């Protein structure tokens, strides 16, 4: 069951999608909401897709059942995806559907909104119409409106009126058009987008300082956190540029709080000098890198997984780092927390990869378990630390006991971007240099042991293995379902921890002789190349998409089918 809401930027597709998503989630359904929008503020063509099912769908599908066409262009662009039995909600005051079209449900969105109290509520009218077509009443959404407009005098009532007007109008035309199966009794569940989820993970990981510069699709994380800084022990600062952002965060981290920054590829490019500084000074830092299609400005509001190589090798010189990725909300919440703990434990920079698709996709998910989150700072005990304190004491693990500046009278805590001795003072001699290079690189061994093997999904003795990472998880999972439904033994091997790459599972699974497919949102098969260089295993086929649009499960399954 797919709902597509389309219109020009600024027409409020977001609002409708959000209200419907939360309402349907409360009703017990599972909703997946994806967004397709342009890099502009008004005009153009944007759309939001909601897929609704008894369990939360993993990815979007092509066929539309309810098309909410907020302008005429939307009808023309999307009628091709509309099911025979589909319905088109549109405002006849704005445009009529052309002659042979019989699927229209004309609802005077604006006129009804005005009656209810203002044109601005057209979107609420549309929501009512959709609910009617789904055969749902307005009770749940009314509650929601009451909550959302609690602060704004009279608005809940007006919106409720608009909602009911839309519902009545559409019901009169169509009654119950679509039979949603009865909802599951799932209890309370969240309907949350990727960026809010990451923001929540940040806050719940005890981060106290975020400095960042706005950049799509990472800005949502900053927005989430900024909105909560008045009520939490948190400072969110918009830096003058990305260089300041990462260097501020490093200062905050050095001084002792959990700190981070977030950006997209172009901003990350400006941060790699600071990344290298984190490596040299051994300052914990998490960078959320929300990818979008490059090079340069590229496609600011689209998705890609084109910066994996850059995340692995960005920054001059050699130093250990970890790279983790957001796969789906139910995992990313805990994994981002892991990123913070790894950064603190190993005193290294940790890159957390997201992308526009993950950032902007919302899902219905079970409640998050905050007790699974860890807050291990791995700081040295001031009373039990060898004195005089040496910031870069040589140890077997490569990790030096970490004291904070200002914590212990008489002790100096000195971090240095030059090569340095144990005290943090500049050196130039060959012997100390060797020791320090080896000390830093020694951390890699410990780090490697912390990496989680990729998740396996699907057939236990597969003929075909799809391999992916990050936000393609949902599409890949459903692709496996489609292949298996069609009688093909397929499995998914999906990476969330990417560096140091855990290789045991992929070695074992591919040893079974299955055909392997690396499925990636880029043009040069970066994961496939990473796999090869860490294991010598070459994927039999690469399925690549680099047009800025997320994979559909059907697409992947079709590609796999070409080769099996």
């Amino acid at each position, binding site marked *: 069951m797919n709902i597509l809401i389309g219109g020009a930027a600024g027409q409020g597709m977001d609002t409708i999608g959000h209200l419907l998503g939360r309402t349907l989630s409360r009703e017990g359904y599972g909703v997946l909401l994806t967004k397709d929008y342009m890099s502009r503020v008004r005009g153009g063509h944007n759309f939001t897709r909601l897929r609704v099912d008894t369990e939360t769908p993993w990815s979007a599908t092509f066929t539309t059942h309810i098309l909410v066409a907020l302008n005429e262009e939307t009808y023309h662009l999307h009628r091709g995806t509309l099911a025979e039995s589909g319905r088109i909600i549109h405002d006849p005051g704005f445009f009529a559907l052309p002659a042979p079209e019989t699927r229209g449900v004309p609802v005077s969105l604006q006129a009804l909104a005005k009656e209810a109290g203002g044109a601005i509520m057209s979107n609420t009218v549309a929501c009512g119409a959709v609910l009617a077509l789904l055969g749902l009443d307005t009770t749940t959404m009314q509650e929601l409106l009451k909550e959302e407009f609690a602060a704004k005098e009279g608005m809940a009532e007006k919106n409720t009126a608009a909602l009911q007007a839309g519902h009545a109008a559409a019901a009169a035309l169509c009654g119950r058009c679509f039979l949603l199966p009865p909802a599951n009794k799932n209890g309370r569940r969240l309907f949350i987008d990727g960026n809010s989820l990451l923001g929540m993970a940040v806050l719940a990981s005890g981060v106290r300082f975020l400095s960042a510069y706005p950049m799509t699709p990472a800005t949502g994380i900053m927005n989430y956190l900024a909105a909560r800084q008045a*009520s939490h022990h948190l400072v969110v600062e918009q830096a003058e540029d990305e260089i300041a952002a990462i260097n*501020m965060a*490093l200062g905050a*981290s050095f001084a002792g709080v959990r700190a981070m920054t977030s950006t997209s590829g172009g901003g990350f490019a400006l941060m790699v000098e600071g990344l290298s500084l984190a490596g040299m000074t051994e300052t914990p830092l998490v960078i959320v890198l929300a990818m979008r299609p490059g090079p340069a400005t590229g496609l600011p509001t689209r998705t890609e997984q084109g910066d994996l190589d850059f995340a692995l090798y960005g920054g001059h010189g050699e130093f250990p780092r970890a790279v983790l990725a957001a796969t789906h909300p139910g995992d990313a919440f805990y994994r981002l927390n892991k990123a913070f703990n790894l950064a603190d434990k190993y005193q290294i920079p940790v890159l957390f990869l997201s992308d526009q698709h993950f950032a902007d996709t919302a899902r219905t998910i079970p409640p998050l378990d905050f007790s699974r989150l860890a807050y291990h700072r791995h700081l040295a005990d001031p009373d039990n630390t060898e004195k005089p304190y040496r910031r870069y004491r040589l140890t077997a693990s490569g990790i030096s006991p970490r004291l904070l500046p200002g914590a212990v009278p008489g002790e100096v805590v000195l971090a*240095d971007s030059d090569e340095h001795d144990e005290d943090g003072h500049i050196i130039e001699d060959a012997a100390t240099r060797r020791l320090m290079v080896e000390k830093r690189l020694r951390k890699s061994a410990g780090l490697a042991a912390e990496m989680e093997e990729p998740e396996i999904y699907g057939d236990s003795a597969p003929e075909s293995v799809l391999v992916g990472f990050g936000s393609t998880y949902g599409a890949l999972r459903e692709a496996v379902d489609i292949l298996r439904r069609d009688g093909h033994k397929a499995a998914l091997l999906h990476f969330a921890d990417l560096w140091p790459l855990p290789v045991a599972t992929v070695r074992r699974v591919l040893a079974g002789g299955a055909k392997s497919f690396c499925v990636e949102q880029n043009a040069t098969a970066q994961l496939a190349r990473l796999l090869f260089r860490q294991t010598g295993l070459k994927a039999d086929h690469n399925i690549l998409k680099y047009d800025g649009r997320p994979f559909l499960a059907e697409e992947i399954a079709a590609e796999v089918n070409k080769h099996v």
Partner: protein
Amino acid sequence: MCKNALLTAETAWCPGCGNFGIREALAEAVCELGLPLHRILLCSGIGQAAKLPHYLRLSGFNGLHGRALPPAVGAKAANTALVVIVASGDGDTYGEGGNHFLHTIRRNPDIAHFVHNNQVYGLTKGQASPTSEPGMVTGVQTMGVTLPPFNPLLVALSLGAGFVARSFSGEQEHLKEMMKAAISFPGYALVDILQPCVSFNKINTFSWYRKRVKKIQNHDPTDWRAAADLARRWGEEIPIGIFYSAPRPTFESHFPALRGTPLVELPFDPSSLSHLQDEFF
């Protein structure tokens, strides 16, 4: 003695370098202010000036060239109990780090910023810096510097800096007093310090400066226009002293999170935030 305990025996500076006077003055200033020494954090970039944290027994963050200020802002926010001092070169601050100079002034964090202004890139062997005198010939400016010198005081004033001063490494007593005032000032405080580079700057030497520096007299440091007029003077007479001093709200004062116990000291338990998800149900 407090001061002597702070100074390290070795430095990599050239004998006779103006940086020595700055180091001495800073050691004296923090000692005379009676600051808890372990709470001082010295942030710097890269350059000769920026080596300072290695030559004073204080905690430090010796970061990247041009990036002395941002870590200082972050560190101060993380731990408001720290006394954060930034030492950086003219190239560091006004060249590579120019954007941070602009916006840190606007931000107004409670840090003191001492710019070792030797009007040259010392560590990289004598290229022009933004403050180099026109006509100065270097290995890169082979036809002489053509750009007009960057006026740090005037620019700082035009950005609304609350504390703007100039001193001279050859006037150690004066310099120390400027430093004390800057450290004590609530907010961003800039002291641009004339610092002879005996190896690469053959124009702006100790004697060149000594002949010209003149202590500011009869000046109201809350008078912006007068300060701007003073800041535009550079030539046979170079004013030193406090050009402008008028506090405005600090960066830290705007954040509710920074009004109480330093962030770094607060405990945290993730489970206590489980209610964060409520708004998404």
